[in-house]
C-alpha cells in the first residue's frame, strides 16, 4: 500500500466506515488531532504525527505515524519520544487530565511485509508497530495500552473495497486522480458565482480534515505541502492550456485562476454548459491515461425540480 492508502486505513480507526472497525473508538480513545504540529519542550522543534488520540480513562495518548517506506526515521522517533504528557497539555493545549499519571506512546503503521523490519528498528518499550495486510492488523514492538493492542489484533476488515479517501490524494498521486478531485472544486466555484479560485482554497476543500498531515516533521519548511500545491497547480495549468482553455486563465504568477466566463442564468443554458464541462473533464482524464467517468448523454428536459 502507498503512504496515502495506509493513511486512509488509519483514518478508518477514527471515521466510521462500513466494514472497518473504528478501533480507536472501541478502545475508548478520542482523536485529538490529525496532522497537527506538536511542540517539543524547547518550544522550537516540533513533530507532526498523523494522528494524536487520547484515552483519558486509562491515561494514554498515542502518537500514530504512517510509514510506507522501509525505514523508521531515528530523529523523528527520538523527538516523538521526547514529548511528555505535560508538554501535550501545557504547550499543545490537549486535554490531558493528570499528566503525572499519563503515558505517551508511539504507534507506527506500515505494510504487513515491513512489520519485522520496522520492529527491529524501534527497540523501545513505548513504541508499537502495526502491519496491515489488507484484512488484518498484526502487531510487533511494545504497546503500553493492552486494550488498544487487543482491539487492533481482533479487528478484521472485509477484503475487497478499500477505505474511504478521507485524504483524496497526495503529492505522489497520478495527475488523473488529482484531476478527479480538483475539477469538481473548480466547477463548485463557478456554480456559486465566484470569479477566482486559488490552490489553497481548493486544498482547504479537498484536504480540510488533514491538510496539516502534509507538513514535514521537524523542519517546518512545508516541503510536503509545497509539493502538493505544485501538483495541483500542474494539473490545473494543464487543464487550462487544453480542455478547459475556454473556461479559465491563470492570474499572473499567483497560484490562482480567474474564470473567463460564468454559467448562464437560465436553467437550460446552465445545464448545457455543465454537461460541456463534464465532457471536457472526461477528455482530460482520457488524455491523462485514465478511463473517463461513467456517464450517459442525458438531454435536458426543462427546469422542473424533482
Amino acid at each position, binding site marked *: 500500500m502507498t503512504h496515502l492508502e495506509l493513511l486512509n486505513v488509519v483514518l478508518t480507526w477514527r471515521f466510521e466506515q462500513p466494514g472497518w472497525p473504528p478501533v480507536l473508538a472501541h478502545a475508548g480513545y478520542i482523536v485529538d488531532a490529525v496532522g497537527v504540529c506538536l511542540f517539543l519542550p524547547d518550544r522550537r522543534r516540533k513533530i507532526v504525527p498523523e494522528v494524536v488520540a487520547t484515552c483519558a480513562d486509562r491515561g494514554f495518548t498515542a502518537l500514530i505515524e504512517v510509514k510506507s517506506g522501509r525505514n523508521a526515521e531515528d530523529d523523528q522517533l527520538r523527538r516523538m519520544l521526547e514529548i511528555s504528557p505535560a508538554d501535550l497539555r501545557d504547550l499543545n493545549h490537549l486535554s490531558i487530565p493528570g499528566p503525572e499519571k499519563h503515558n505517551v506512546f508511539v504507534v507506527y503503521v506500515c505494510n504487513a511485509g515491513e512489520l519485522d523490519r520496522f520492529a527491529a528498528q524501534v527497540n523501545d518499550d513505548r513504541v508499537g508497530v502495526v502491519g496491515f495486510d489488507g484484512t488484518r492488523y498484526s502487531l510487533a514492538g511494545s504497546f503500553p495500552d493492552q486494550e488498544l493492542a487487543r482491539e487492533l489484533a481482533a479487528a478484521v476488515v472485509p477484503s475487497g473495497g478499500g477505505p*474511504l479517501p478521507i485524504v483524496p490524494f497526495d503529492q505522489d498521486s497520478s495527475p488523473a486522480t488529482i484531476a478527479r478531485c480538483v475539477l469538481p472544486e473548480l466547477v463548485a466555484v463557478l456554480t*456559486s*458565482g465566484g470569479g477566482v479560485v486559488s490552490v489553497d482554497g481548493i486544498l482547504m476543500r479537498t484536504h480540510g*480534515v488533514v491538510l496539516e498531515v502534509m507538513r514535514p516533521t521537524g523542519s517546518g519548511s512545508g516541503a510536503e505541502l509545497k509539493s502538493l500545491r505544485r501538483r495541483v497547480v500542474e494539473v490545473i495549468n494543464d487543464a487550462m492550456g487544453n480542455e478547459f482553455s475556454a473556461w479559465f486563465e491563470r492570474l499572473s504568477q499567483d497560484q490562482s485562476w480567474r474564470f473567463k466566463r460564468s454559467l448562464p442564468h437560465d436553467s437550460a443554458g446552465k445545464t448545457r454548459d455543465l454537461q460541456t464541462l463534464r465532457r471536457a473533464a472526461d477528455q482530460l482524464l482520457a488524455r491523462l491515461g485514465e478511463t473517463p467517468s461513467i456517464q450517459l448523454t442525458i438531454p435536458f428536459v426543462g427546469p422542473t425540480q424533482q
Partner: protein
Amino acid sequence: MLAARSPWPAAYRADDVEDVESASGRTSVKTYLLEAHACDAPTRDPLAFLKTAGAKLGLEVEETGDRDLFRLNAQGDDYWCDTSMGRFWRMHTTVAVENADKVRDALVAASPWLDNVWLPPSLLEELPEKTASELQTFSLSHDRTLLHPSAAPPADFDYVSMRVWASRAAETLRKLRQAEVFPHGVSIRSVKLRADTDSGSDEFCVSEYFHNGKVTVTGNSFDVHTNLVVNVVRLYRSLVEKIEREFALGYDTDQVRLNGNPVVVPVEWTLSDLEYAVSRMFASVEPFRLWGLPEKVADDHYRARAVDLHVGQTLTVDVTRQNVVIQLPRGTCGNTVVRFLAALQFHVNSDTGKALLQ
C-alpha cells in the same frame, strides 16, 4: 400584518377536495420556505442580498417596521419575506399561485445562496404527529423510471402518483403501507394538515405542505398558520443542523477537536443496473442535480466527488449495493444530504435513510 392584508378564502369545508396547488387564480395565502445558506454567504445581510437579487428580477425590496421582515413587490404584487428564523426564511403572499411560483423560482435561481427548503417524504409523513395537527390529505409521487434503463425494468413497478382524500387519511396511509401495494414506493409528496387553536375558539387553518417547501393555506387564522409553519421549519432546521453537527468532517474550532463521520445509509436498491443509476445521479440534471466524475472503484462500488448544483458545494459519494456513503466536508450545507436522500426516497426506495431523516 400580513393577516390583515390577506383576503382569506371562504372557510374550509370538509368536502372541499380541490387541489390547492393547481388551483389557478386562487388568492389564498402561500408561504414559501427558503433556506439561505450560512458560512459567510451574502444572505447574512438579507436586505442587501434581496436588493441585489431583486434588482436582477425587477423586484422592488423595501424595509418594514419589523427589522426581519421585508416587502418585495413584483409588478404590483406583494411578497413578505420573514427572515426572523436565521437561515430559514418564509416568504408569504396572496398572489395567484402560478405567479407566486415563478417569483420564488426566479429568486432561487438568481443566486446559489438561496434554495427551497426540501422537505423529505419521511419528514412530511411525520408532520401530523410532530405538529399535533390532523392529516386530511396526502399525495404520493414515486418514479423509478429515471434511474433505470428502459431495457431493465425495476422490481414491482415503475412509478406511483396518486392523491388520496379520505376521512381517516392517516389510517389509510398506514394501511397502504401495511398492504405493501407499492413496496418501498410510498413516497409522500405533500400532506394537507388541519391545525386548530388551543384556546377552544374556532380559529383554524388547513395547510398543504409540498416537498419543495411550498405551503398553500386556507382557513380563518393566519396566526394558527404561522404557529404551524414555524413548527415545521423548526423540525427541518433541527434535521439539517443535526446532520451538520454529527457528520460534517473537519475541525470544530470551538471545541478544538476533530468532528464528524461519513454518513452511511443502507440502501435496498429497487433497480438492477447500479452503474446506470450512478451515471444518472451525477449528470447535472434533475432530480439529483449533482455534477461529478463517477468512477468504478470495485465491483458494484462507484465513487464520485460531486458538486451540489443547488448550492455550489462539494461532497464525496460512494455507492455500493449495500449502502451509500457520503463525506460531507465541514462548511457544506446539511441540506445537501437531506436532498440527496430525499431523491433516493422519491426514485429508488421510499424507506431509504428514514432513520437519519427523522
